[in-house]
């Protein structure tokens, strides 16, 4: 092939054309770079200006749509949506209503709904993200319709995220759970985020109890992954879901062989100031559960001093260390036990005790 190519009578023409083409391409690249730099800088300035204008109009004007120029370019839509989302995050009442009204007055929702059907998946994903940030109830049906026709998993996950911010009632949570279980489990963080959004949305409407009903429903549902149940509990932890206390104890009792669920329950309850399961967790055969419980032992379980002291000889390094720290934080009796251990014959226990004492002194 190389021979045919090099011996062709047009060989030099080809090479010259390639050289010229590359030369022109290089010059064009440099010119494009400079043009793009100027374009981006001016569009950035314009974007910032529009953002400021929209924020001010939303807060000060009675009819902001009359003051603001209608967006036509992508950067103008982006500037307005940024400003509106920021206002919606920070304000409630009249200003929030005005912001939501502005979205439809300026055709922003229509624009992003069109983009949510773009042929490039990340543009669709970005449009869904922006629509999610508006938290508009009217987007619920749209999200559900797009979800049915959407082919990209990445975008489907984003649609569920958007829907999670709009949950209002029990049927919404069930629908979201069904949609989630129809997709491969993504990550703990993602599932937790979804449930966190749901709890926050329900709390805002005073229907936090709905989430409790949902958690009770899935507790014994074998079709729901234990990982999802764990993520529900950690979402309760993150969203400080105070009303779920009793339910979390039920979860602790129902899953004695699922350390992930037990750890999540211990932490979530402790955050609510409930240490009723901590003593049992300290005695649990799985070291991870013991470790999670020991972090709170000084707050609730100093009557278990001999048991905690025995954990200074636990096979797990982390358990030994945290048992010592729990004793150090547990008052004079704990410190006395540590002092004895530090002078004792067991090198492992002595070194951890010495460390905990030094930490306490510091």
């Amino acid at each position, binding site marked *: 092939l*190389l021979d045919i190519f090099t011996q062709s009578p047009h060989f030099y023409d080809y090479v010259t054309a390639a050289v010229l083409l590359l030369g022109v391409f290089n010059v064009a690249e440099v010119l494009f770079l400079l043009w793009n*730099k100027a374009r981006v800088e001016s569009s950035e300035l314009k974007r910032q200006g529009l953002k400021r204008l929209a924020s001010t109009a939303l807060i000060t004007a009675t009819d902001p749509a009359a003051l603001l120029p209608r967006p036509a370019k992508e950067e103008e839509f982006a500037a307005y949506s940024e400003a509106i989302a920021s206002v919606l995050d920070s304000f409630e009442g009249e200003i929030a209503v005005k912001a939501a009204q502005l979205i439809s007055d300026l055709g922003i929702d229509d624009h992003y709904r069109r983009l949510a059907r773009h042929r490039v998946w990340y543009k669709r994903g970005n449009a869904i993200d922006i629509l999610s940030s508006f938290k508009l109830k009217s987007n619920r049906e749209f999200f559900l319709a797009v979800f049915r026709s959407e082919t990209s998993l990445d975008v489907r996950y984003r649609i569920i995220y958007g829907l999670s911010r709009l949950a209002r009632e029990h049927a919404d949570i069930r629908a979201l759970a069904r949609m989630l279980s129809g997709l491969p489990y993504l990550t703990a963080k993602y599932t937790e985020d979804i449930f966190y959004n749901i709890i926050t949305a329900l709390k805002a409407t005073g229907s936090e109890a709905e989430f409790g009903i949902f958690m009770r429903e899935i507790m014994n549902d074998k079709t729901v992954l234990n990982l999802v149940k764990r993520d529900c509990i950690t979402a309760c932890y993150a969203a400080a879901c105070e009303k779920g206390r009793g339910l979390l104890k039920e979860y602790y009792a129902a899953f004695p062989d699922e350390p992930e669920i037990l750890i999540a329950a211990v932490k979530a309850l402790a955050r609510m100031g409930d240490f009723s399961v901590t003593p049992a967790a300290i005695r649990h055969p799985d070291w991870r559960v013991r470790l999670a419980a020991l972090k709170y032992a000084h707050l609730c379980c100093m009557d278990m001093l001999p048991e905690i002291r025995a954990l200074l000889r636990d096979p797990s390094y982390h358990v030994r260390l945290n048992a010592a720290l729990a004793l150090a934080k547990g008052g004079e009796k704990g410190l006395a036990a540590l002092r004895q251990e530090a002078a004792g014959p067991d090198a492992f226990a002595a070194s951890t005790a010495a460390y905990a004492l030094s930490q306490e002194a510091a």
Partner: protein
Amino acid sequence: VKLFLLWAAVHASQYVLFLYFLAINSVYTALILLALRDIVRHAYLTTSRVARRQLASEFYFKPVSVIVPAHNEAAVIIQSVQALLNLHYPEFEVIVVNDGSTDDTLERLRREFGLLPSVKPVRLQVPHEAIRGVYRSEAYRHLIVVDKVNGGKADAINAGVNVSSYPLFCSIDADSLLEPDALLKSSKLFLEDDELIATGGIIRILNGCKVQDGAVTEIGLPRGFLEAMQVLEYTRAFLSGRTGWNALKSLLIISGAFGVFRKDMVVAVNGYRKTVGEDMDLVMRLHRHCRDRAIPYKILFVPDPVCWTQAPFKLGMLLKQRNRWHRGMIDALLTNRAMILNRKYGATSLIGVSYFVFVELLGPLIELLGYLSVPVLYFTGLLSGRFFVMLLLLAVFWGISINIGAVFLDIYNFRRYKKTSDILRLCVLSAAEFFGYRQLMLLERLRATVTFRKKDWGIQDRQILEDKGTAT
């Protein structure tokens, strides 16, 4: 017979050189195109409000141990640690490992941060030289200093891993500065993807930038030719190279200057191995470990967490560094030779490792053959002057377009260098690289190929970080 063999060799070499020329430039062009797609997508998905809201969230994070190996880093260590203590992150610890420094690195740390001995038992999970003492700062409870017998960078990070308390660790060079949100951006990925085991951000050149209170406040292209040329090289290597390898699931290097790892996985491969290319070696062993055991995993490069690092400003230092990198790469490839053209390791072997063997390892030898064969072929009448000039122009123009393509990726998406003069200088350097600089680097890589068994690191001069400008 001898003449025939010579004739055959000359002909064969022509084909080899021409095909190599086509192959290497095509690979680089393909990488740029892949990177462009990836970076535009990444920019779209990470700048959305929802994504930024999640980044700023304090509910979801995994605590991180930042490990800083330091050997004779007295000149820069205080500023580096101060910068690290100011990171935006909900829960982290900074572990400085003083790797048997012979200067006053430890003394300065002790004075500045009020170090007190810590008796926390160290769990020996990965091997390293003996620890002489562990200290904790009185003022900053999340600053730990480990003093140990000298054992090299890999050994020091291993000690840091053993002392660390958290499930993720970030290794960073003592002369580098992390942007305040770099840790947040890179560790967030571990929350989003349970399969992620290691990630690295982009390394940018600190020379020429203004630094105040341990943070980069003004970005500029360094004035010195060598340093500015390295800006171009780093931009190309990270934005087109690593992003492209990402897309091909074949990332083999996470820079030793800034990488975040899942500790359990690093412990599972017995930590870092003592070698001059410990970063590439670790990543290759992680690939092998996961593939051998059918563990689903991801190793990713992300272009937006930024680590600023000092680049060598003297030619001798630069050559030493490149020599070390090349030796490290050869050593990593030899140690992990089971991954060469092995279908068991999938794209990582067939694309990533093959690239390193045939382009990075054998490339300098073929390039040298090219330089030597031109006069031989010309004087024996086998090469026409016109063809030579055309081929040279083609090679240089193609190379320039690859370089400008990398600059384009950076300026188009990240716009770090904002001055027009800096952008134009980068374009000029894209051409200048082919006239002397590239050949110098080639010779050093050839030297490294011959002396690849050497294990020394050499000494690098450091500039004080609070200083603007170049080779001072």
